[in-house]
């Protein structure tokens, strides 16, 4: 495998990290109106991700920076082309990120419900739009000879992309709700499990439609079909395990679903990185979008040394905060 191809898969890996981790953050945020019946409930929910949301979100920053460094043309085309969609994602991430910190600064319930609203919207918007963005990348968008996107925001909101957005929205929602049941006790744990059973069914139907539609775009390529099938099986397995009350395994299979789905999408893309829908000659490919061999060599050594280290200390962090969050724990602690 040449270096650009290696980095194509490393980028896929970084986005898997981002979607698996921030995915359940988004799900927990979106679950507030469904699971947060009172203030103690809502604080329990927010505290399930309290110590980790920031490191989860950092996966996006690193994925973006590595995309810039390894595939400058891909980064430039994608970010300038999807300008308004990314603006919405940024505004949502800003509103959501500050809300975690601001929410508990004042006791008034009006103040708290204001930031609850920002957490809910700030979680739902990126959960939807990341799916829209990736579906458009896979489907292809109009590009000129300079690889600049020539469409508009409305062109991005086509039926296939919206189905992709709905898929990530539901997938992250269910993934987050299963995480809640994994991280809480008693009544909250049961309610979260039941909610995930219901939302999981809808997720399975929508995700299946999306994977089938993508199969048509990928021209039923063998590797795509294998990965999409694995994603589907993992999702169904996750649903059964959750219903059986085995939250840990259900959550692990939820993460596997996201990983296989991202791999399937990248397989569908390969060897393009941004296919041009108007003229294949304008497509961005792994070869014409990537950085020089020297840059990729430097990056590869850095990733080789530091990614295992990063995974180790982040895994350790999750281990430190492995205990379930309870209402009692919230009530005795200070803000």
């Amino acid at each position: 495998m040449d270096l650009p191809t290696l980095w194509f898969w490393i980028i896929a890996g970084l986005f898997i990290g981002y979607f698996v981790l921030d995915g359940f953050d988004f799900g927990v945020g979106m679950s507030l109106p469904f699971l947060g019946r009172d203030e103690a409930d809502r604080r329990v929910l927010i505290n399930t991700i309290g110590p980790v949301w920031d490191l989860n979100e950092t996966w996006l920053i690193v994925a973006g920076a590595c995309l810039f460094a390894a595939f400058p043309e891909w980064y430039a085309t994608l970010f300038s082309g999807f300008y308004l969609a990314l603006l919405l994602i940024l505004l949502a991430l800003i509103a959501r990120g500050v809300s975690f910190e601001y929410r508990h600064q004042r006791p008034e319930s009006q103040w708290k419900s204001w930031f609850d609203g920002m957490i809910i919207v700030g979680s739902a918007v990126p959960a939807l739009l990341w799916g829209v963005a990736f579906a458009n990348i896979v489907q292809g968008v109009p590009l000129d000879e300079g690889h600049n996107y020539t469409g508009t925001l409305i062109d991005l909101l086509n039926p296939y992309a919206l189905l992709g957005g709905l898929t990530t929205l539901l997938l992250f929602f269910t993934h987050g709700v299963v995480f809640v049941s994994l991280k809480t006790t008693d009544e909250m744990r049961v309610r979260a499990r039941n909610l995930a059973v219901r939302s999981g069914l809808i997720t399975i139907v929508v995700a299946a439609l999306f994977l089938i539609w993508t199969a048509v775009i990928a021209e039923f390529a063998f590797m795509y079909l294998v990965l999409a099938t694995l994603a589907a099986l993992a999702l169904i397995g996750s649903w059964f395990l959750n219903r059986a009350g085995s939250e840990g395994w259900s959550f692990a299979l939820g993460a596997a679903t996201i990983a296989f789905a991202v791999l399937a999408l990248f397989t569908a893309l390969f060897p393009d990185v941004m296919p041009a829908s108007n003229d294949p000659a304008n497509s961005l490919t792994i070869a014409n979008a990537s950085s020089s061999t020297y840059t990729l060599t430097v990056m590869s050594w850095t990733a080789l040394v530091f990614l295992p280290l990063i995974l180790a200390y982040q895994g350790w962090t999750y281990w430190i905060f492995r205990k379930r969050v309870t209402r009692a724990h919230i009530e005795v602690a200070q803000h």
Partner: protein
Amino acid sequence: MNDWLDPLLLSRWQFGLTTIYHFLFVPITIGMSLTAAVYQTAWYRTGKVHYLQLTRFFGSLFLINFAMGVVTGIVQEFQFGMNWSTYSRFVGDVFGAPLALEGLLAFFLEATFIGLWIFGWDKLPRGMHLATIWVVSIGSILSAYFIIAANAFMQNPVGYELNEARGRAELTDIWALLTNKVALAAFPHTIFASFMVAAGLIITVAAWHLARHQNLVTMRPALKFGLWMMVGSGILTTLSGDQLGLAMVQTQPMKMAAAEALYDTATGADASFSIFTWGTPDGSSELFSIRIPYLLSFLSTHTLTGTVEGINDLQAQYTQLYGPGDYTPVIWITYWAFRWMIGLGLLHVIVAVVGLWLTRKGRMPKNKWIWRAAIWSFPLSLAAMIMGWIFTEMGRQPWIVFSLLKTQDAVSPNVTGLEVLISLIAFTVIYGILAVVEFKLIKRAAQKGPAPAPEPDAESGEIKPLTTVY
């Protein structure tokens, strides 16, 4: 196309505004994480509870702004691609690498260990918990190094080669990129200036409480700490600023000429530094100025007989080298930003020295005007920092990468003025609202003062800090 819908102009405004805004939070993170680490170490070594109170107190002020630093930082990274795609295509091979290194080596450390520090008080052994805040501090300083190395490439491109076939700059030497002489000087300058901002925050908060004769046990040592930190980091900021000045003269002489509004090349005594100019500093209508002879020569070359190139000569040189065009930055901005940066910075060192004298051997000044003046320490040190960035970035114009690419050629060709206007308005509105909320929350937490020291455990006599949750 309407002039006010010019995507270039709007993108420049957006990048400038969002960068300045982001950088309000960066020095606080860099300086206050170190402060919290120092206080927690003091508590760890001495067991004195007021150190623990100060750790938690300044830690809480730093945490209110930390989330803002993170989320506004994502905007910065995205904007290179969103608004400056031509720039990204041209330099991504070089410029992307330090950003990726920053993410992999620094951001992950910061983001992971800050969570451990905030929520780990009751979950980690004391020594390990202390280590987490040091890791956060080191991570924030490391991230500054990589982003400054990236910025230094824009000021003084090194370690690259132009690939004509692909029409882009390609990295040839990562070590040269990371040891760019502009980066080596700008990094300590930025870090020490960040410590000045943190010192300013500590002085402001401590002075507010001491003026009201409250929280004396914690705020008196905090004031001393802040004053010493201001003096120490102020001196180091000055020394590193001097080095940065030398590097700037060697790599971007036009920026130094623009800093001084020096139109004609001057030598020795004529290379004077104007402290203040009345009139327009465009050289045509100077009515009154206070000048220090030789100083500009000294700052630029470290000799009294040096020659400092003027704007007119440099303009002629650059026209020959790079073709016809205007190669001068906006002079009034660079001239005044440079002065305000230096003026406010030096003022802080002087005020801090006076403060140390007034509070020597436990004295507390009675004069309320002294306290009122001290309150301005934080906003003015932050202003000095911002002036420095405005100077260094506006002084780089018209280039986005000096000698390689002009700002006007770097903007995304397919992003319309209307789109940029929408995003500019959106960022302005949300940043504006959050600035008000943020300021009120920090002010409220600062005025509340440190929480009372936790009671020692009945059995062991040890102090267990409380669990923290959102």
